[in-house]
């Protein structure tokens, strides 16, 4: 099946499904927006009062500020180190915070039974799941923005302090850094959706363990694809292909290498991963809603 054919078949199926359910989804969407928003807001407000998240963000900010000890390197090397290390810190801590925030979102509510007071109100289950996810996205956006702003500040500061040499200039590559951080955020958003999905059926501990495994698999997507393409045993090939299809495509959003090497990036390169990510998140959220709808609380 060619990609174009797959797209057309998929489009046909989506249209048929939407047409068959047109009487349900329109009012459901209208009702959902304010409910989802309110649950998202309370999720954000609750996270803001949790000291742990604030402490981790402060820690990362301190790490970023302290990454200025490469004075024996040439200016270009310094800028490369700072950019690659800073973006790595943003990604790693972003992912860690995403895992620990998302893994506790729904299971904690079930454990504390705070979910009863909400689901007894006219709030659909999928609105609750979606609201929690949107709330997590807002929290993580604030965290990534904070860390990115600090990294940009550090780069600009270093740029002003470091003396350029004739053949080596400090290149803060601010545009590239911001772009890479934004794309990193989108990969975190995709991973968070999966964590929320798992948390609708698993305990907090299982969710956290699964999240790390998914992060690793998602980061190895191109390797899995390579292995699947070159596998000789049919069972292995089928298994790897399934893993590749199901796993999140986190490498799509990874532009850190290009940015660290000051390679030119077409910002249009963001559209495809974004579309892919949105589609994936929609599928995952639908699945999460189905699971949570059938979950007995």
């Amino acid at each position, binding site marked *: 099946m060619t990609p174009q054919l797959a797209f057309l078949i998929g489009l046909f199926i989506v249209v048929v499904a939407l047409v068959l359910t047109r009487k349900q989804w329109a009012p459901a969407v209208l009702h959902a927006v304010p*409910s989802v928003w309110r649950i998202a807001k309370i999720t954000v407000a609750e996270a803001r009062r949790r000291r742990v998240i604030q402490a981790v963000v402060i820690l990362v900010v301190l790490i970023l500020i302290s990454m200025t000890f490469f004075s024996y390197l040439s200016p270009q090397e310094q800028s490369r180190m700072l950019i690659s290390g800073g973006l790595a810190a943003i990604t790693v801590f972003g992912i860690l915070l995403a895992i620990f925030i998302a893994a506790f979102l729904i299971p904690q509510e079930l454990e504390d039974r705070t979910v009863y007071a909400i689901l007894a109100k*006219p709030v659909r289950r999928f609105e609750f799941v979606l609201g929690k996810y949107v709330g997590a996205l807002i929290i993580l956006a604030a965290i990534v923005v904070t860390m990115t702003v600090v990294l940009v500040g550090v780069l600009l500061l270093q740029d002003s302090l470091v003396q350029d040499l004739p053949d080596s200039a400090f290149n803060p590559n601010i545009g590239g850094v911001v772009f890479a951080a934004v794309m990193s955020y989108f990969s975190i958003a995709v991973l968070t959706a999966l964590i929320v999905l798992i948390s609708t059926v698993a305990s907090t501990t299982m969710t956290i363990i699964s999240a790390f495994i998914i992060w690793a698999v998602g980061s190895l997507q191109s390797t899995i694809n390579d292995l699947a393409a070159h596998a000789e045993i049919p069972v292995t090939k089928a298994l790897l292909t399934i893993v590749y299809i199901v796993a999140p495509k986190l490498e799509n959003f990874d532009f850190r290498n290009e940015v660290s090497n000051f390679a030119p990036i077409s910002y249009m390169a963001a559209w495809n991963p974004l579309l892919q990510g949105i589609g994936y998140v929609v599928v995952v959220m639908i699945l999460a809603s189905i699971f949570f709808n059938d979950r007995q609380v």
Partner: protein
Amino acid sequence: MASGETVLQIEGLTKVYRSIFTPAGVKAVDDLDLSVRRGETYSIVGPNGSGKTTTLKILLGLIFPTAGTASIFGKGIADLSVREQIGFLPEDAYLYDVFNGEELLDFYAGLFGFSKRRRRELTDELLSLVGMQANRKIPFRECSKGMRQRLALAQALVNDPELLILDEPTSGLDPAGRHQMTRLILELKRRGKTILLCSHFLAEVEEVCDRVGIMYRGRLVAEGTLAELAGMPTEIVITTSGLGGDKAKELAGHAAVLGVEDGTVRMGRESEGELWSVLEEIRRAGGAILEVSRPRPSLQDVFVRAIRQDTPEEAQ
């Protein structure tokens, strides 16, 4: 005062929990039939594990029945619009502990789509009603158990519901707290709310409820008003003082007297015609008559009797 309209109708409701350890399943609710009329306060009582909370959770869509139906205001429980008219106080209610009462009520009111102004008004009204005005800024985690239960009741009232479902509202409260909560429930009853209440504090149930359903092992083993359940008084009790040991023994030999103990003389209801002669005997024996009464069996007694009837071998 209850009107004739049925607000809640449960028919044949069954819930079976299955697991790999219990493939046959455990029946938490077994073929339950129950109805609640508008304005009435109905209480489901039963020991722990009798299926009370399971029934309430089914009504609220938190868990799903294996069989049977339930309708609220004539609509199926899966209908989301039903929840616009319900308020639920869960057992050991836990709300977001980082927020204070004001913030919590604002959030829950928001889920009904109320405007900011209306939310503010509701918050003030409800905090006054439950007596939490002065403590509105205290975070939930710093509130006492009584304060938490009151806040939880307030969130159940945020939409001025027609039907209130309260699960163990006085659980974990000290006597003062229980008294406060009971007063609140009576006030809501006075305002015409229909209340479905689950409890195993029989004293409070006696105080507030119009009708009682006794659940045991998932089944409704008895149902009715307190009077219906308790039945007619079976004894006449005369409280006396100053009856000496010999005189008491002598009195116990009277044909109409069932027994004398610690100055309390019991007569069977069928010997009511002999009452005056027994009173005369007491006076002649030198005793003072303090009280004559026809006590009804307590709900506790009814409860125990109903369970005994249901499971004679375990009734002890």
